[in-house]
């Protein structure tokens, strides 16, 4: 018999847990944890029931609601069942279980099932589990060390950048510090109840989900690794459909799977970095396998049992441990493959898959998942390097003259299975597209988007000029800006003087807005085409860059093909996006995991630029996105408000006024904000460590 590290029963339980996680993740899109006021665990039942019925909108059975991720039609779950070789008769029960209301209780039960040893464990299986967990540990360790080493140097560079920028820009905006002080003593109507909300934001999540389910203690670490590894492989594998094709539209790693795995890892109390290590292991072994197989295209090889292949994958992982570093793998196997023009290979992959599929795979039917999967994975990151960085504006779409990805960081071609695309939106020099993002090390393969530099620089400079103009100076001296902004928030009109003053920004601003909308469409097209290598994407952008991202999401939501699985996380900072005129709900649906809107109520620069008339419709960059008409469990806190991370509750700590002094401070504070958001956590968090700002500050001052 083929060796899997898991018995059929365990695989069944693993599949059930994934369906539960997948469904909960979808529920959290609209009803995030920690937002509804859950005082007791018991009341979750009720909420769970309601939310499941709300997201299933019209029925109490999964099979009747095709909008659900766990529904057959979304093609997210069944390929995984097939990969895990779960008997098709059990599929429906699994799907319905995933969609049932009392998720928490099911999680416990399935975890217990996972921990039980039904059959006598074979020594092979034990060895496998042990080897796998060792490999994962080793990989995680090497990833952590490389990260910390390289980050020191880049932190330094980032600091320099910050210094540079401040000297350059703050001439105008620093004048506002007096106004800032004012804002402290003079709390805006908005900010008054904010600190309270923030606590809610942090606490219930912890209270309820972050403490692992009690059954978790029953589960051995090795078992956890084995389960997650198998599920991850299943998510990555491109399992051939029996007979019919294309029920799963998109190949590669679906963002919704990643989000669900993230939740599952949280349930299992499993560090995310180790999940990332597994991703790298899978990717690299897939590359290795592919390199071994494809040139020869030997069908005999393919018939080899899939588990022995994965086992080899595990061994390759173990090599990381003994060999010392991750580079041992990527240097030896993946990198040459890429260097040899994997990007060029990418188009031909389309032909390879059918070739392999037709000959070898049909015979082994469902068992062939791993190899097909390896092709998908390899295709994933093979295509990416060439895909994204090669995407200059070859085609000019709607006046966008410049649209280009720049690789940042050191994670390229390292088998990373998640991509970060970072978009600046306030730019004084070309380097401002890239430098704000340097220095923060995470395990994403990161790209900065350079777009429309001419227009962006011109509008940014115009704003800057205006800020330093006499009128603005005068207003700032009087501390008027903050009051102006607060009256605007109260939907009053701009003072006439201000209106006139901003006229000359207007034309440039209008062009920039128009370009950002178009760049958003371009970005959406890039993503739909899979140029990021069919890997889940995290989008982060500030100012007009945030608008690019938002427009991209909107465009994705309108596209016909299954675009919901492309984007995993989104962070918008200081976004010039109207709250009432835009459909935030549809944009939200395009994001599998967290969707964060960072705003600052003292960001009056943005207010000025965005113009008075629009302000009455709300502005995401200075206000929480608070969609009315959507009622929520918590009256003070509606659907989208969890997105809102409250920058301006910070003035309570003296130093943090420094965090966002004006709109342009996003250039250098973005990283710190991102750090505090801790994107790798499944739950909405915003870490505020009072010590941090001081530490951060001391070197500069």
């Amino acid at each position, binding site marked *: 018999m083929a060796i899997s590290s898991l018995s059929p029963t365990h695989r069944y339980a693993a599949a059930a847990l994934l369906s539960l996680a997948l469904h909960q993740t979808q529920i959290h899109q609209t009803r995030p944890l920690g937002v509804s006021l859950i005082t007791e665990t018991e009341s979750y039942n009720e909420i769970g029931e309601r939310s499941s019925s*709300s997201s299933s909108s*019209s029925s109490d*059975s999964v099979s009747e609601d095709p909008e659900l991720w766990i529904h057959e039609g979304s093609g997210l779950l069944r390929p995984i069942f097939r990969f895990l070789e779960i008997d098709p008769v059990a599929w429906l029960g699994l799907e319905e279980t995933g969609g049932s209301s*009392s998720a928490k209780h099911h999680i416990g039960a399935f975890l217990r*099932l996972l921990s039980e040893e039904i059959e006598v464990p074979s020594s092979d299986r034990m060895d496998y589990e042990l080897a796998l967990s060792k490999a994962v540990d080793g990989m995680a360790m090497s990833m952590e060390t490389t990260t910390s080493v390289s980050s020191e140097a880049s932190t330094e560079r980032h600091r320099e950048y910050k210094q540079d920028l401040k000297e350059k820009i703050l001439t105008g905006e620093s004048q506002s510090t007096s106004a800032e002080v004012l804002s402290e003593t003079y709390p805006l109507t908005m900010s008054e109840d904010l600190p309270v909300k923030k606590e809610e934001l942090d606490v219930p999540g912890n209270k309820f989900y972050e403490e692992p389910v009690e059954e978790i203690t029953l589960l051995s670490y090795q078992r956890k690794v084995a389960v997650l590894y198998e599920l991850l492989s299943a998510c990555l594998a491109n399992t051939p459909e029996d007979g019919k094709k294309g029920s799963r539209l998109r190949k590669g790693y679906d963002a919704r799977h990643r989000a669900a795995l993230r939740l599952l890892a949280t349930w299992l109390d499993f560090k995310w970095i180790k999940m990332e290590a597994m991703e790298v292991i899978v990717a690299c072994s897939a590359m290795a396998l592919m390199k071994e197989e494809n040139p020869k295209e030997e069908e005999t090889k393919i018939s080899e049992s899939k588990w022995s292949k994965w086992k080899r994958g595990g061994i390759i992982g173990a090599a990381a441990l003994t060999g010392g570093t991750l580079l041992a793998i990527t240097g030896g196997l993946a990198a040459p493959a890429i260097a040899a023009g994997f990007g060029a290979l990418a188009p031909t992959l389309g032909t390879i898959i059918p070739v392999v599929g037709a000959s070898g795979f049909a015979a082994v039917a469902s068992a062939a998942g791993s190899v097909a999967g390896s092709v998908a994975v390899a295709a994933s990151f093979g295509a990416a390097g060439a895909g994204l960085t090669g995407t200059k504006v070859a085609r000019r779409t709607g006046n966008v003259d410049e649209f280009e990805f720049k690789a940042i960081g050191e994670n390229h071609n390292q088998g990373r299975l998640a991509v970060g695309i970072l978009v600046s939106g306030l730019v004084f020099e070309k380097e401002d597209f890239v430098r704000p993002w340097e220095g923060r090390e995470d395990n994403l393969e990161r790209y900065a988007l350079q777009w429309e530099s001419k227009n962006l620089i011109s509008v940014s400079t115009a704003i800057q000029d205006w800020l330093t103009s006499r009128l603005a100076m005068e207003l700032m001296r009087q501390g008027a800006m903050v009051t102006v902004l607060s009256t605007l928030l109260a939907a009053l009109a701009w003072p006439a003087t201000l209106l006139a003053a901003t006229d000359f920004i207007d034309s440039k601003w209008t062009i920039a807005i128009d370009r950002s909308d178009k760049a958003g469409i371009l970005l959406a097209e890039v993503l739909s085409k899979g140029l990021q290598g069919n890997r889940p994407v995290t989008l982060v952008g500030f100012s007009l860059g945030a608008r690019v991202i938002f427009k991209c999401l909107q465009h994705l*939501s309108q596209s016909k093909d299954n675009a919901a699985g492309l984007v995993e996380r989104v962070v918008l900072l200081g976004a010039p996006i109207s709250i009432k005129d835009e459909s935030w709900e549809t944009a939200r649906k395009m994001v599998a995991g967290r969707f964060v809107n960072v705003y600052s109520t003292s960001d009056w620069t943005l207010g000025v630029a965005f113009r008075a008339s629009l302000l009455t419709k709300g502005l995401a960059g200075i206000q929480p996105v608070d969609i009315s008409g959507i009622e929520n469990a918590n009256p003070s806190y509606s659907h989208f408000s969890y997105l809102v991370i409250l920058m301006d509750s910070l003035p309570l700590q003296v130093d943090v006024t420094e965090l966002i002094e004006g709109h342009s401070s996003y250039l250098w504070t973005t990283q710190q904000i991102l750090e505090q958001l801790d994107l790798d956590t499944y739950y909405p968090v915003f870490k505020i460590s009072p010590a941090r700002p001081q530490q951060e500050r001391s070197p500069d001052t």
Partner: protein
Amino acid sequence: MNRDISFGKMGSSGNGGSSNYDYSFKILLIGDSGVGKSSLLFSFISQSVENEVLAPTIGVDFKIKHLAVGGKKLKLTIWDTAGQERFRTLTSSYYRGAQGIILVYDVTRRETFTNLSDVWAKEVELYCTNQDCVKMLVGNKVDRDDEKAVTREEGITLAKEYGCLFLECSARTRENVEQCFEELALKVLEVPRLLEEGSLMKKNILRQKQEYQAPPTGGCCS
């Protein structure tokens, strides 16, 4: 193979009208492995005589049946649990929120009957969160009369002891199969609290629909 047929029919058994019912009830089938829980359900759902032996259920199975009882249109969501020991830990989480529980035994195997009081009744007591939940004792396989190891009287006595309804039926001949579910449903309809639960779901959905104004986007999961 027949399984696949029933599988394919799933969800469409009620001519698709998901909102076309007055109440929705959750029914749970429990009992030892091999007593014929899945056969009973299959017989009820497919409305045909079934002679093949089904493979043991893996984990849980799920079926929907629309049904008109006592002038009300009902939607029964029926969870068929695995009787096998190895899935025992699992079943516990499915008791939650059930309005009706059917305890099945095999009239030809006495131990399946004794296990009801030794094991299953205790499970129900332990895990069933619903005090008013209607329970029903069902002796399956009465078509094999000559092998009978549990008498009807014994069944009635046990049912009385636990305050259950009682029926003997045969999944193979379909004798009493429909009565089984109908009687249970009728009984559930008599309990106001359960009735409330059965309609609560629906009310919630309506309310949710009003609240949830986001236009259904086809792009999400099509």
